[in-house]
Structures are given as C-alpha cells and as structure tokens.
C-alpha cells in the first residue's frame, strides 16, 4: 500500500463522458498517477464496493463524483464515498444539477420504465418487465430501485466543491488537478468549501468574441436555414443562445463555432434558478408589446424545457428537494 494520497472517481447516473474528459487531459493523467493512489475508479480499474466499505472513514483525499442520483445504488455509493472522502467534488453537470438524466424528472418512474421496455422502439417480444427482486435457487437477487426523481449529489450528501460542465473541459480538469497537486505540495490553498472550481465567475458572453449591440429579438431561429453573421452575437440574430446566463469556463466553444450555447456549464455565480433567469432575460428583449405577436415569437422555442432547463431541471427551484439558493452552484 502506497502512502500517496488516495483518489477515487465514481459514475452514478451519467453517460461516461466525464470519465472520457478526465482521460482526455492526456499526459496530465500521469500527474494523477504520480501524486495519487487510485483506490476506486470503476471505469478504469476493477474494484468492489466492499473494498471501499472496508476503507477507513476519510481515508480518500479526493473523490470526483459524476452522475446524478437516480437509484438507491447511486445514493448508497454517494453516502459511502462521502463518508470515506475528505474532499467530495460534484464533477460534471449530472452531479451538479442533474443534466440530461434529470429531464426524466418530468415523468413518473412508471412511465420511464414503460417507455424503456414497452414502446415500439423496444424489441421485447416476451413483454419482459424488470422486477426489483427475483428468487433463484441460489437465493434472492436484487437490482437497484429507481428513485421517484433524480437528485443532484448535494441533494443527497454534503458536497465540498462543484465542478460544472457536460463534460468539464479538459483544460479545466487539468488546472484543478494542478491545483490539488500544488496544495499537496504546500504551494497553494484550497478554495473555500462550497466553491465552484474549474470554471469562471461570469458568463459565457465574457469569453465570447462576437460583437454585441443593444439587444432586441424579433424572432427565434435555428442555426440552419439562414445565413449566420460570423461576427455578430448569436442572440441578436435570433439564435436562442444560452450564453447570457451560463457560467463561463469553456472559452465560449459553441458560440465561437457558430452554434448556440446550450448551457452545460450551468448557472452563473449567484443565480438561483438558471431557467428562470434565462426566461426573464429572453422575455425582456422580445421586441413586441402585442400578445399575439409575442406568442408567435415564442413559438420559435418549441421545447422550452429543453431550451431553458436542459441541464438544470433536477437542480432548479422547480425540482429542488432542499432550498437551492443556500447551496448555490448545485
């Protein structure tokens, strides 16, 4: 057993993109190996939950937890890793604010399961329906129970730091690893508990080089089917770009490439409800006072939940289990 500080990473309800993003830091991953003893990382190495359970409480220095809390297994591991870790980081959008899996909070669990097993897109000729437990000759086996709604990590356990992004940008991950290494070497100090790390403090607009004027919106448009001015703010061209409300840190990748920001870095510092902020921001600059015309303009946003709450639904005030404003950044 090495005496290096211990590192863990876990995926709950997530897609795996966060793990890829960590590996995508290229040779920096060697720093992780050089400075840490990786004790638990299901995607990268074999490990058993019972091994983690056997560890001393607080013995893992740093745990990057990605994924939302969708079932009782996720919740169990979240609580387990909380207990075992000194620093628990909500890593990536799912753990921070629910992300795409959180959109399932619009439907009851029953509907979700039925959609997965019994709709036309599923080849299920025998009508198999999952059961929580099953008695076999060898004994009873169980699969995790789906919780009524997906929760963010900090709706289940206490979280030390928040690292947003879907996934977090590799250069930000590298910077955070650097920081932790420096802290270990006594060259830097940790930010205050509850801070957002690996991201900026303002919005995507701050990093976006597009030209901006006083805004008015006459219609909402898609990025295809019209000529996009490569220099001008997308929102001014009617492209519903979420950059105005989204935390900076990604170097405005999407808007720079000509695609609207969809908000994966979550709310800006101090914003309690991302979707509500964005809605009031958009609504404020709609250039009409005629209710019918406004309705027509708003028809340009066919999927408001997807537009305003794609990443944030589980963490929003709408679906917050605890008052979200106290734990901003979640």
């Amino acid at each position, binding site marked *: 057993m090495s005496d290096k500080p211990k590192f863990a990473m876990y995926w709950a309800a997530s897609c795996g993109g966060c793990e890829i993003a960590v590996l995508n830091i290229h040779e920096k991953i060697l720093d992780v190996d050089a400075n840490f003893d990786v004790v638990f990382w299901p995607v990268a190495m074999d490990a058993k939950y019972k091994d983690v359970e056997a560890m001393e409480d607080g013995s893992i220095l740093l745990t990057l937890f990605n994924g939302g809390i969708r079932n009782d297994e996720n919740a169990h591991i979240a609580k387990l890793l909380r207990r075992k870790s000194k620093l628990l980081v909500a890593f990536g959008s799912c753990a921070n604010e629910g992300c795409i899996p959180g959109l399932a909070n619009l439907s009851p669990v029953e509907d979700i399961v039925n959609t997965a097993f019994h709709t036309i897109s599923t080849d299920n000729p025998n009508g198999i329906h999952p059961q929580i437990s099953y008695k076999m000759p060898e004994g009873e086996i169980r699969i995790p129970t789906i919780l009524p709604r997906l929760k963010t990590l900090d709706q289940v356990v206490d979280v030390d730091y928040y690292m947003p992004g879907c996934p977090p940008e590799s250069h930000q991950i590298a910077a955070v690893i650097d920081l932790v290494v420096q802290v270990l070497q006594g060259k830097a100090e940790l930010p205050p508990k509850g801070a957002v790390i690996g991201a900026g*403090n*303002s*919005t*995507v*607009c*701050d990093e976006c080089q597009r030209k*901006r*004027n*006083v*805004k*008015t919106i006459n219609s909402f448009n898609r990025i295809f089917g019209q000529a996009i001015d490569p220099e001008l*703010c997308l*929102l001014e061209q009617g492209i519903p770009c979420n*950059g*105005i*409300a989204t935390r*900076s840190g990604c170097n405005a990748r999407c808007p720079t490439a000509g695609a609207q920001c969809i908000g994966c870095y979550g*709310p*800006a*510092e*101090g*914003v*309690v409800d991302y979707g509500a*902020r*964005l809605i*009031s*921001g958009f*609504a*404020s*600059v709609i250039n009409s006072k005629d209710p019918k015309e406004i309705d027509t303009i708003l028809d340009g946003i066919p999927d408001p939940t997807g537009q305003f709450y794609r990443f944030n639904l589980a963490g929003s005030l709408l679906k917050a289990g605890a*008052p979200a*404003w106290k734990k901003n950044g979640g």
Partner: protein
Amino acid sequence: MEKIGVYVCHCGTNIAGVVNVEEVRDWTAKNLKDHGVVISRDYKFMCSSLGQELIEQDIKEQGLTRVVVAACSPHLHEATFRKACGRAGMNPYMCELVSIREQASWVHTDKVAATQKSKAILSGGVRRVEYHTALEPLKVSIHPDTMVVGGGIAGIQAALEIADAGFHVYLVEREPSIGGHMAQFDKTFPTLDCSACILTPKMVDVGSHPNITLLTWSEVTKVDGYVGNFTVTVKKKASYVNNDTCTGCGICWEKCPKKVVDNVYEAGMGIRKAIYRPFPQAVPKYPVMDVDTCIYFEKGTCKACEKFCPTEPNSINFEQKDEFLDIPVGNIILATGYDAFDPHRIPQYGYGRLPNVFTSLEFERLCNAAGPTGGNILLRDGKTAPKVVGIVHCVGSRDKNYNEGCSAICCMQSLKFAHLVHERTGAEVYNFYIDIRTPGKSYDEFYQRLLEEGTHFVRGKVAEISDAVRLPGEEGKLVIQVEDTLTGNQLRVPVDMAILSVGLEPRADAKEVAKLFGISCSANGWFTERHPKLDPVATMTDGIYIAGCVQGPKDIPASVAQGAATAARVLGKIQQKEIALEPVRASVLEEKCSGCRICNDLCPFNAILFHEDKMVSEINAALCQGCGTCVAACPAGAISGTGFSNEQVLAQIEGLLLLNISEDAVPA
C-alpha cells in the same frame, strides 16, 4: 447572530379584532428564536409615540440589530418605524414593516386562518430582515422650475401661486387658450357670480406674469427623470401664426372664408373659422390655424388670412412646423380636468335626435351673454323661448350602465339652470332628480331658494324623453316619462326644452396621460392620490401632483383649493433645495457582468449605460428609481437591487412558506 426585535401591532381592533395578536407574538418568540428573534412584543398602537419609544428602548437596552414591525402597510408607516430605529442609532433600513392589517385582518373573517397567515407573513419578514444592509439615502438637488399641465382653473391657481412666490412655472395647455371649462360657464353656483368676470383676471395674470411661460396649443409627449429632475418634452403644435408679430387684431379670422362648428368652446352651439381664437377674452390673444378644416391645407389655395394680415412682417406662416421643447423641471402638477359625459350614449334621452334636448354645456353657452344667442335662452330654432323646461339630473352618473359615481356638481348645476331659466324666461321648470345633494357652503340655502321660486321637483329617474304623442296636450312637445317615486305615479311631463345635466368623466385619454407621467389611475380613469384623506393632491410618484377634476369630480372652490394645495406642496419641495431619494437602487456587479447587453434597452429611466471598452453595463444611481426591471432581466444575476436582493426575497419566501421551522409549529 443578529438580534431581531419583533413588534406586533393591534391597531386598536383593526388587527386585534381578527388576528390573535398575543398568539402571533408568542409563536414568534418560540419558533423564530433560531432565526434571531430575541424579543417579541405586542402593543395597542405601535405607531403611537409610546409604541415607537418601546422599539427605541429595546434597541438601546437590548442591542437589537434588526427590527420587524407587523402592522399596517409600508405606505402608511414604513417611514415612521424607520425613523424610530434611526433615532435609537440603528440604520433605518434595518427595519422591516410587514402588513398583517391590509394583508390579513382586513381581508379575512376567519380568525384562526388570519392568525396563521399573520404568523407566516411575520416569519417572512423575520427571515428577510436578516439580509438587510445599512443604506444611506441619496441626495439630489431639486430644479426650482415647475410644470403645470392643464390650464383650467385648478392649473391656473397652482401656476399663479408658485409664480407669485417667485419661482418659474411652465403652464402647458392643449387648447389655444387657457380657461378650461370654467371659461364656458355663464354663472357659478350658488352665488351666481359671472364666471368670466372672476376667471378672466386670473387668466390675464397668467398671460402677463414674468414667472410664467405659457405654452398653449401644446401637449406633453414624453417625461423623463424623477422628482427634482424631470425632463418634460412638450410638443408645441404649429399654429401657423407668428406670435412675435401678431397683434391679435382679428382680421385673419374675420376674412377666413371657412366656417367650422365649434365643438370645444361653444359645445357645438356656435361656429368659428378655420383660423380662430376660441373666445374674445382668450389668453393668449393669438389665433391658431386648424389644419383639418383650413381650405389652403385641404386644397392648396386660399391664404386669405395671409393676404389680409396687416402686420409687418406678415404674421401668418404656412411653413411653421411643430416644435419640440425639452424642459427641465423639478415638479409637475397635473390639472388636466374632465370630459362631460356624452349623452348620445343614452339613446332613450333623444340627445342628437330630438333638437330641443340640450346638454348642460350647451345650456351654459345659451345663457352666456357672449354665447351664440347673446344670452337668450331659446330653443334650437334660435327664435322661440321655451314655456316649460325639464332638467334631468344624474345623466350618466349614479348609473351602473355608465358611471357609478356621483358627479358632485350636477345637483347644484341643475338648480342653477332652473334658477336661470326661471329668471330669464319665466318658464315653468321641472327638475327630475334621484336625490338632491347640496353639501357645500350655502348650497342647501340655494336649494331652498329654488323651492321658493316655484320650481317643480320630481323625485325619479327619467325613463325616456320622446316626441311621440300619446295624450292630449303633448303635440309639439317633448314628453318626459318618469315615475314620481314620492307619490308612486307614472308621470308624462310635456316640456319645450329638456336639459340633460351630464356627469363628469375622466378625460378620454386619461389612462395614456397617467402612463406618460408614471402615475396610477382608477379603473375608470380618475388619477389616484397618494392617500384619499391625508394626501389628496400628491401621487405615488414623487414630484407629481394632481389638482382639480383630474382626481375626481369636484366643484370650482374645491378645484381652486387643490390647485393652491399642490402649489404649497411644490413650493415646500423647492424650498428643501435637495431631496433624499429612497436608496433602493439597482447596481451592476462589474466582475459578474459579461456585457451581454440584455438590460441596455430596458430601463424606463434611461439609467443604464454600456462601457464599450470594459464591456460592462453600469447603472446611474441618481437616475435609477429602483423599479427592478433590469434586476429581473439580468440573466447572469449581475444586477442586484438594494433592499430586494435574491437573498432577501428568497429568505422571505422561505419564511412565508414556514420552511426551516420545526414541524409542530407549522399549522396543518
């Protein structure tokens, strides 16, 4: 930890009659102590000096850092309790007033529920006050000039009082002359003074006053700024007459070939020309051109006025354009008056269909010596004197179909008409009334006098005025069908002339005007005073005052009194020289602002500017009125409103929802 003192007011029985004040007090002490409440008291009248001293004493002796008073609405006593806290050495803005009167006791009858609601409201206040910050009011200087909008008697009075006190006034009037409705009247009740005789000297004073800039034929198009520092844009409509050279000799309108029915001053009873001065005593004396009827503007030829104008250089100028003046003023008085009810809307009274049905304004013109008949009361044919006249009260007033309110002046106006008819024609007069309302000084005496003069009074609402003959003696007459509710008989009263004593309505454009000046008006359009009893001439917008019928129907003395009252208020403001503005202001946190420019075009006070170099927006604190539009719009949460921060609002919501309070304290 903050030390919060909570004070629950009984307001006599106003609150305590419905809300169990002691229960609220004890509940707060018990359940909100974790949120900083160290003292919870109740008192009969918190606003009394003893109540205020209670707070002051606790601040000094207990070292309170925050105060929450559960009493009436902040409109009424927020300032009272802030001052009390200030006297005890606390920053006044550390005090929060929550309303358990307007929002609980006055609007509920269920005592248990009202008490629970009061707890929730109070809990919201306690949670909110924790996030209050010490604020200092902003001082701005007050521009000493005043704008009076509307040149009727109320506006004239206000303008003269301020000008006489030595301060400059801009008096804006939409019509070509000041004078308003009063200039159209013949006599005033109950003294029967000649209206023109008492009004015109004041009009002349206005016209010649060195401190008054008279802007007739002008309208306000835009109002920017705030108390002490308004900028009002006035559109001076082109009159096509150069007032610098015009002498008001009258040759132009004498020679003008175009006759136009005068629907404004003469109430349709007389004619004027396309270029006209509404009446001989008009102030100013200069005529204006009505481009809608002028032959030159219609056909491109005529210019008779120009040809005959004797002045050198010629005073007629067809090239004149509308002028827009930006006028800085410190205070604004609105005295835009009323519209008379249009009785076309009551078809059964036959106005417009039956020639000898007159409106009250038409009758005023008939009586007036300068009017179309030279003061002779004649039927529409202009020859016949009526032998029997019926006067119908409450036309368009006290009627759910039109205006529910009483127009305040119609009874006295109708009595005046009855007297004038009687005096000038000897005709028999019937007054049809619902109730006689004569509350003013010497008003009821006037009514008694009318009774002695032999006027017939019929108590009943007129059903119909018709020329259909049903009984002998009705041929060639107007028949007034009415139930005499004192005898229970249906009457058919044949008359030669019917006068409809029409009610007073808000100006047709009252709502737009209210919006322009940023004040509120009632659903029908009367402008809303700051307090119906104690502050009848101020509005909820600082620096904007209302006088006369714009606030509601009233007679001349009341209008004059209000005009003078607004002047006193404005003079008081001017004398202060500077004014403390509420420190509730929005500000941009520069490091959070990304310069997305969402807010840039939203500010109704133009307080937001954008720094192109730094790519951030900034709010001018002196211009900001704390409306919160930009705070709500800022998608980055970079704009915050003092007194209404996210923390404050969300904590208050949590408090209202009784979150983070032990479960057994939360009512089922």
